[in-house]
C-alpha cells in the first residue's frame, strides 16, 4: 500500500519550477507526486494553512563534532537540531577527531547519519589531516560519500596545494570549499579589528585577512578554470572581490551566515564569548555589504557554520575561548527577517537556503518537481518565540542570539516523505 501524505493549503514556494502559490503538496512513497493528482483515499492530511511549503532547506556548512568531540554535539543531536530548525540536510565539515580525510571516517559518519533526523553530506578534507601538506584521497572519499572537500577551520596556506586541489577535485566532481584567511595577518587576533577592538583592548583581525585569501582563491579558480566555493564571507572587501570575479565569469560561489548579516562586532561588548567566531563579526559597513551581496546574487547561499562548543571552551577568558557559534535553530527566523524587511523576497529565501546549496554541492534537492525525493521544509513565517537555552536542541548552547525574540519557525521537516520533526501548532 502506498504511503501518502497531503500537506494541505500551504503556500508552496519552489523557485526552481517557477512556482509560488497556495496549494496542496501530495507525497507518495517518499516522493513528490504529480501536482494536481487527485489524492488517494487513504491519504493522511496535514493542514498547513498559513505555512510555507518549500523544497528541503540545506545547510551547507555545519560542524557535527562526531567522531571525537561528542560532548559538544553528535550526529544524532546535530541532525535533530537541523530538523527542528527546518533543515532536511546538512553538509558536515571534516575537522572532527580524527579528521575526515579517508573512507573509514566518511563511512562512520554516514553509518551514524542513517539513524539521524536529516540527510548528512560529509565534506572531506582537502589535505591529509587538514595539515595543509598533501592532498587527501579525494577519489576514495568520493566513493565513500563525500560531496565536497575543505580544510575548514584552517586555510590551505600553500597556493600550489590549493591549485592542485581545485584541479584534482574537478576530476572527481567534488566542490572545493575554501576557508579563506591570511594567517599572518590574523595571527593572535580574537575579534574584528576596528574601533571596538581598540576600545576593548582585544587583538584584531583586519578585514584584509579575509580579502587577501579570497582573492588568492579567485585567482586560482580563474587560472585553472575550476570552480571554488568561498565559505563564511564576512566582509565588504571579500564580497566586492567575489562580485567582480563573477562579472568576469570566474566560477566562484560563496556563502555567508545569519550572524554576519545580523550582528556586528559590537556584540562582543562585555567580552561575550558567544560572539566569538572566525571570521569574526565585522563592522556595520561590512554587515550591510554582505546583505547587499545576498540581494544581488554575489553571495549564493546562507549557511550557519553551526559550531557547537561546550562551556569548557566558552566559559573562559575571551582570548582563550574557542571560535564558533551554533546556528541551526536560528537561521530560518534570522533569514526570514530579511524577507519581512523587504531585503529579499520569498523566492530568494528558498534559493539561498535550498536550491543554491543543492547546486553548489551537486546533490539532489532544491526542487519540488514530481518524482523528486520528498525532502520538504514547512515553516510558519508568523510564529513568534523567544530563543531560550531550554529550547536549544543542540547539545551546546553557544549562541549569540539567546534571549532574542524571533519570528518564523519550522513546523514540519520531511526527509524522503518521512516526518523527521514536527511542532504542534
Amino acid at each position, binding site marked *: 500500500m502506498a504511503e501518502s501524505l497531503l500537506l494541505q493549503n500551504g503556500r508552496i514556494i519552489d523557485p526552481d519550477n517557477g512556482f509560488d502559490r497556495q496549494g496542496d503538496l501530495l507525497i507518495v512513497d517518499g516522493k513528490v507526486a504529480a501536482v494536481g493528482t487527485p489524492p488517494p483515499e487513504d491519504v493522511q492530511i496535514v493542514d498547513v494553512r498559513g505555512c510555507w511549503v518549500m523544497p528541503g532547506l540545506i545547510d551547507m556548512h555545519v560542524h557535527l563534532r562526531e567522531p571525537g568531540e561528542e560532548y559538544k554535539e553528535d550526529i544524532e543531536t546535530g541532525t535533530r537540531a537541523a530538523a527542528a530548525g527546518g533543515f532536511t540536510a546538512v553538509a558536515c565539515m571534516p575537522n572532527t577527531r580524527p579528521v575526515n580525510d579517508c573512507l573509514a571516517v566518511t563511512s562512520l559518519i554516514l553509518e551514524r547519519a542513517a539513524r539521524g533526523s536529516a540527510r548528512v553530506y560529509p565534506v572531506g578534507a582537502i589535505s591529509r589531516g587538514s595539515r595543509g601538506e598533501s592532498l587527501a584521497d579525494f577519489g576514495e572519499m568520493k566513493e565513500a560519500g563525500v560531496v565536497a572537500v575543505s580544510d575548514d577551520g584552517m586555510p590551505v596556506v600553500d597556493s600550489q596545494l590549493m591549485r592542485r586541489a581545485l584541479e584534482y577535485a574537478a576530476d572527481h566532481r567534488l566542490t572545493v570549499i575554501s576557508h579563506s584567511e591570511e594567517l599572518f595577518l590574523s595571527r*593572535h587576533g580574537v575579534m574584528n*579589528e*576596528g*574601533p*571596538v*577592538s*581598540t*576600545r*576593548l*583592548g*582585544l*587583538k*584584531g583581525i583586519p578585514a584584509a585577512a579575509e580579502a587577501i585569501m579570497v582573492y588568492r582563491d579567485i585567482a586560482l579558480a580563474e587560472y585553472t578554470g575550476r570552480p571554488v566555493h568561498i565559505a563564511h564571507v564576512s566582509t565588504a572587501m571579500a564580497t566586492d572581490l567575489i562580485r567582480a570575479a563573477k562579472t568576469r565569469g570566474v566560477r566562484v560561489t560563496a556563502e555567508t551566515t545569519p550572524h554576519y548579516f545580523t550582528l556586528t562586532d559590537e556584540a562582543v561588548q*562585555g*567580552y561575550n564569548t558567544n560572539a566569538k567566531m572566525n571570521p569574526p563579526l565585522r563592522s556595520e559597513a561590512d554587515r550591510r555589504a554582505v546583505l547587499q551581496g545576498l540581494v544581488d546574487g554575489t553571495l549564493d547561499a546562507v549557511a550557519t557554520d553551526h559550531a557547537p562548543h561546550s562551556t569548557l571552551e566558552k*566559559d*573562559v*577568558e*575571551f*582570548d*582563550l575561548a574557542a571560535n564558533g557559534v551554533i546556528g541551526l535553530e536560528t537561521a530560518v527566523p534570522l533569514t526570514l527577517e530579511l524577507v519581512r524587511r523587504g531585503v529579499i523576497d520569498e523566492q530568494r529565501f528558498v534559493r539561498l537556503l535550498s536550491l543554491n546549496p543543492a547546486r553548489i554541492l551537486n546533490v539532489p534537492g532544491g526542487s519540488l518537481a514530481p518524482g523528486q525525493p520528498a525532502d520538504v521544509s514547512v515553516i510558519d513565517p508568523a510564529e513568534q518565540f523567544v530563543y531560550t537555552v531550554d529550547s536549544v536542541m543542540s547539545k551546546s548552547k553557544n549562541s549569540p542570539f539567546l534571549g532574542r525574540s524571533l519570528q518564523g519557525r519550522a513546523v514540519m521537516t520531511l526527509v524522503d516523505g518521512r516526518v523527521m520533526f514536527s511542532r504542534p501548532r
Partner: protein
Amino acid sequence: MNSRHSMTSGYNFTQKHILGIHHLSADDIDFILKTADSFKEISTRAIKKVPTMRGLTVVNLFFEPSTRTRLSFEIAAKRMSADTYNISASTSSTVKGETLIDTARNISAMKPDIIIMRHSFAGAPDMLTRYIDASVINAGDGSHEHPSQGLLDMMTVREHKGRLEGLKVTIVGDILHSRVARSDILGFTRMGARVFVYGPATMIPPGLEELGATVCSSLEEAVADADVVMTLRIQKERQKDPLFPSLREYAQKYGINRRILDRARPDAIVMHPGPINRGVELMPDVADGPRSVILDQVTNGVAVRMALLYLVMGNS
C-alpha cells in the same frame, strides 16, 4: 554600609566594581579624585594608618608580574587597616589547570570583600564579577584598561595644573598595547581635557577618535603647546612581534628629549606610568628634570587606591 556621598551636592557614588574608566561618569571621577586628595595626607603622618577598613579582607589576585601596582594597592589597603593577601600567578592554581572561574569561586568562598585583579587578558575582571560577590578592582587587564593608573594620572595633573578642563594632554608611544593610554584617553576627555596621541603608525590602533583622542601626524605637532606630555613604556618583551625596527631608532624618532619638550608649554609637566626604559622612550635629563612629576604619580597612586578601596567598600 551606605554608599559614599557628597554632603553638598547630593551626589552618590554607586559603583560596586572599578573595571574601567569607561564605566565612570565625570562626577564619579571628580568624587574619586577629591576623596583621594583627602586621603593623601594620611601617608604623610608618622603613623600612616587609619582604622577605616579594619576587619575587611582585600585579596590581590595578580596573574601578571607587577611590582609597583601590587605594592601600591597593598600599601593602600594596609594604611586603611584592611587585611591583605597576595596571590600571584606563580603560586596560583591556574598552573594546575584550574579555570579562572573556579579560582574565582574558591576565593569567593573565603569571603573576601574586595578583589584586586591584574590579568594579561582583556576582560578577565569583567568576567570575575559574574561569578563572585566581592567588589572587583581592575589593576590592569591586557590592553584594555588600568583605571587606577588613569585616576592617579588625573589626580597628579589636577594637583599641578589646578584643573583638567581645557588642558592639552599628549600621550606618546605604544597606544595599541597600552591599557594606561585607554584609561587616560577616556578619563581626561571625560573631564574636559583634550588628548592628543602620537606614536609609530604600527602602534596606533583604529578608532582612537571614537574614544575621544586626536591622532597626530608628527611628534612636533603632538607636543606643541602641550600642558602634559606623557610617554608610554616600550615593552621590550614584545620585540618578538616587532612594531618598529629597533630601540635605537625608536629613541631617536619617538623618544622624548629636552629639545622636543621645548615645544610644549613652558610650564608643561612630564609623566610616565613606569617603569621607565631610560634612553628609549624618555631621555634621562627629562625623566630627572624639573618638569618630571613621575614620582608624584607614584605617591598619588597610593592615595587614589585608598580612595577606590574606600568607595567600593561602601557599595559591596
